[in-house]
């Protein structure tokens, strides 16, 4: 190779340049990375960890924490007229710089060398850690971040065991109320400025900033303003220490007790990817999970706090049937039998199904089967539309409208709303099955509902419609069942079960398939959720060859609806402009 190297372009630098890559030596190993990659990302590709605080791939890199210092080297510049010398392996010799550089804001170059370890780098990290810890309070036992705190982690890995600091620590405001959902502790802040940059660059609401100088630098809100943006809680997620904590999760539970379940948000059509944090049978918090095709790494506050209704007192925990004007609890088997009995003998135009686009694809498929078993055309979904917030909240407030259209094979499943409402009011429709909706909230009066001879309600919370029902079936919330949904852009995503349904409530698909078996004894009898998905894969062209397992945690694009998520569009532009790594 060495004799041909001078004549033909087989040097590693030329091979890499053909692909738009450069060669970088990281801790002694040569790898190829795309041109323009940040050094910290190149190290990540080489599976070498570079500790950092201020750097976040979704935000600009000010390089102010100095934690990611690494040693860097480039080939020496040839003297005028001198040809660069290549070694046996085709690389130039690296001349190591005597001073470290930050890995987060510098990009790689051809024949660059990076050392993420060694005397110089380790001494630098130790020094930076010591400075960061000088004024940091010993709050860990009362700090919510303990257990997921980068400062704790890196001080174990790169810090000293003891402090040499003899003087008194600088005092700063503690327990500051900076917004309705967020608490600030300035003493814990390490001035990484991630929250400031997030509010400025992603949330477009630059209310945070630093005041004062030197050791007295303090994070504060703009005078007269509050951190009340609907994306504010994301700053709590990206805060590497416990300076920003969520009022909702504050002091509820230590993070090391919590189990993480990947799932998706069900409060709007975007379907932000989430992690559900549970202990035992209780949800403690919901945080966004990174998915660059759906929600980047963020989610709106209103959606992440919506899980509280799962644990509300209004939760239905037992099947109920009406006897003598009173609801009495019964077994699921009897309730389903009674629910089916009420539909017996009624012709198709006298029954109706009012379902929800909040249901999973699996549930909607079973609803379609029930519709066929009842021989009716009266199936409507309740639509929920609002305004998009220009970021992550979609105008469609139902999480599975796209999926419903695909599963039901109906481009406008909301169309029959007026017709069915009219038929119920006129007494034409005598029996109805209402799934996951409170009809009194969507325009029905309780008088209209009283006209029904048989009303079956499947829901998770008790409400006015359930109060009128002859049979109430307790379903499971998004965190208590498995299933799949398709978001506004046409991405098939998966819900996972984080906790068990309370009491005798059960996953909706189980109840619906029991009801289907009563109505149509010859019909399909799925035993598990995978069976229902198999039925979906057989019936819906877009789901062909897919299984729940194949969907994975990040979802699968099954359709192109033409809809876009505004926040992602903005982020893509910033990546193009090389403002962020993404």
């Amino acid at each position: 190779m060495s004799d041909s190297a001078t004549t033909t372009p087989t040097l590693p630098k030329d091979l890499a340049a053909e692909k738009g890559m450069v060669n970088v030596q990281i801790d002694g190993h040569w790898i190829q990375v795309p041109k323009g990659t940040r050094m910290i990302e190149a190290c990540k590709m080489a599976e070498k960890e570079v500790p950092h605080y201020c750097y976040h791939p979704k935000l600009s890199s000010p390089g102010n924490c100095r934690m990611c210092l690494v040693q860097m080297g480039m080939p020496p510049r040839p003297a005028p007229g001198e040809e660069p010398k290549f070694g046996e392996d085709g690389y130039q010799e690296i001349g190591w710089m005597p001073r470290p550089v930050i890995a987060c804001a510098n990009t790689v170059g051809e024949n660059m060398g990076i050392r993420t370890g060694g005397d110089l780098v380790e001494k630098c990290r130790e020094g930076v850690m010591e400075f960061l810890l000088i004024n940091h309070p010993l709050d860990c036992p009362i700090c919510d971040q303990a257990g997921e705190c980068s400062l704790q982690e890196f001080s174990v890995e790169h810090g000293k065991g003891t402090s040499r600091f003899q003087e008194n620590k600088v005092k700063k405001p503690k327990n500051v109320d900076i917004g309705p959902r967020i608490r600030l502790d300035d003493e814990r802040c390490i001035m990484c400025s991630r929250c400031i940059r997030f509010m400025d660059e992603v949330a477009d609401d630059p209310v945070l900033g630093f005041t004062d100088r030197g050791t007295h630098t303090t994070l504060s809100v703009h005078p007269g303003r509050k951190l009340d943006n609907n994306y504010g809680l994301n700053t709590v997620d990206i805060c590497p220490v416990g300076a920003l904590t969520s009022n909702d999760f504050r002091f509820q539970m230590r993070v090391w007790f919590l189990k993480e379940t990947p799932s998706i948000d069900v409060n709007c059509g975007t379907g932000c990817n989430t992690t559900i944090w549970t202990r035992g049978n209780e949800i403690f918090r919901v945080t966004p999970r990174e998915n660059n095709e759906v929600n980047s790494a963020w989610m709106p506050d209103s959606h992440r706090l919506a899980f509280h209704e799962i644990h509300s007192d209004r939760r239905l925990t037992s099947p109920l049937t009406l006897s003598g004007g009173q609801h009495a609890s019964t077994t699921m088997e009897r309730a389903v039998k009674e629910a089916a009995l009420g539909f017996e003998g009624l012709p198709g135009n006298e029954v109706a199904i009012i379902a929800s686009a909040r249901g999973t694809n699996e549930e909607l498929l079973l609803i379609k089967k029930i519709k066929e078993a009842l021989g009716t055309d009266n199936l409507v979904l309740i639509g929920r539309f609002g305004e998009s917030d220009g970021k992550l909240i979609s105008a469609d407030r139902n999480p599975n409208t796209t999926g419903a259209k695909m599963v039901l094979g109906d481009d406008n499943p909301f169309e029959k709303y007026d017709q069915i409402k009219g038929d119920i009011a006129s007494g034409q429709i005598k029996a109805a099955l209402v799934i996951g909706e409170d009809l009194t909230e969507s325009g029905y009066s309780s008088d209209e509902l009283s006209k029904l001879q048989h009303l079956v309600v499947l829901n998770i919370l008790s409400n006015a419609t359930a109060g009128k029902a002859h049979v109430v079936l307790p379903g499971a919330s998004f965190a208590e069942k498995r299933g799949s949904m398709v978001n506004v852009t046409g991405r098939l995503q998966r819900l996972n079960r984080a906790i068990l349904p309370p009491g005798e409530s059960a996953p909706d698909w189980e109840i619906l398939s029991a009801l289907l078996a009563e109505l149509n004894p010859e019909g399909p009898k799925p035993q598990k959720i995978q069976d229902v998905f198999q039925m979906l894969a057989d019936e819906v062209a877009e789901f062909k060859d897919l299984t729940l397992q194949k969907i994975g945690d990040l979802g699968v694009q099954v359709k192109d609806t033409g809809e876009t998520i505004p926040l992602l569009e903005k982020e893509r532009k910033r990546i193009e402009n090389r403002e962020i790594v993404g």
Partner: protein
Amino acid sequence: MPVVKLQRPTLTTSEKLTLPSIFKGFLVTLGHAFKSLAGKSRGADSLNGSGLGVTMQYPEQKWDGELPEYYRGAPALVTDEQDRERCVSCQLCEFICPPKAIKIVPGEIPSDDEWAKVEKRPKAFDIDMIRCIYCGMCEEVCPEQAIYLRKDYAITGLSRAEMVHDKEKLYEIGGKRVGLVNKWNELK
């Protein structure tokens, strides 16, 4: 590893018959019985015997005074000189507890409280003494010097619920402990 061959003792004919040895044993016991009746049992004084032999009459008589400093009895919460409850409900003891005997519900200290700057204290602190194995891990892990294993060892109750020590009971057992690190002082 070197092999050591043990030489089995060679028994005499009377020993092989067993019965004579049993009667020898009876004689020793009888000797001690007469000695104890005469009040001359060896070690009766040092072991705080009841007068008849060396037996201590528990629970009328107790050996509590002799328990060593490091004795590991029931775990309990302590308050300090300033009557502050030292526990900040960091839940490390709940985490470390091998039999999962500890259950803590953390709570926030209201802003009008004297110790509002500590921010956090337990709303409820239960130790299930049926589960507790007196290992002392909770004391070892506590970053606030708030939980100690005291010398109480006779933990009894008539029901499972009675065997759960709640916060009040834990402070009652623990009492006040002085001379601990005053971490939440005015410099803080």
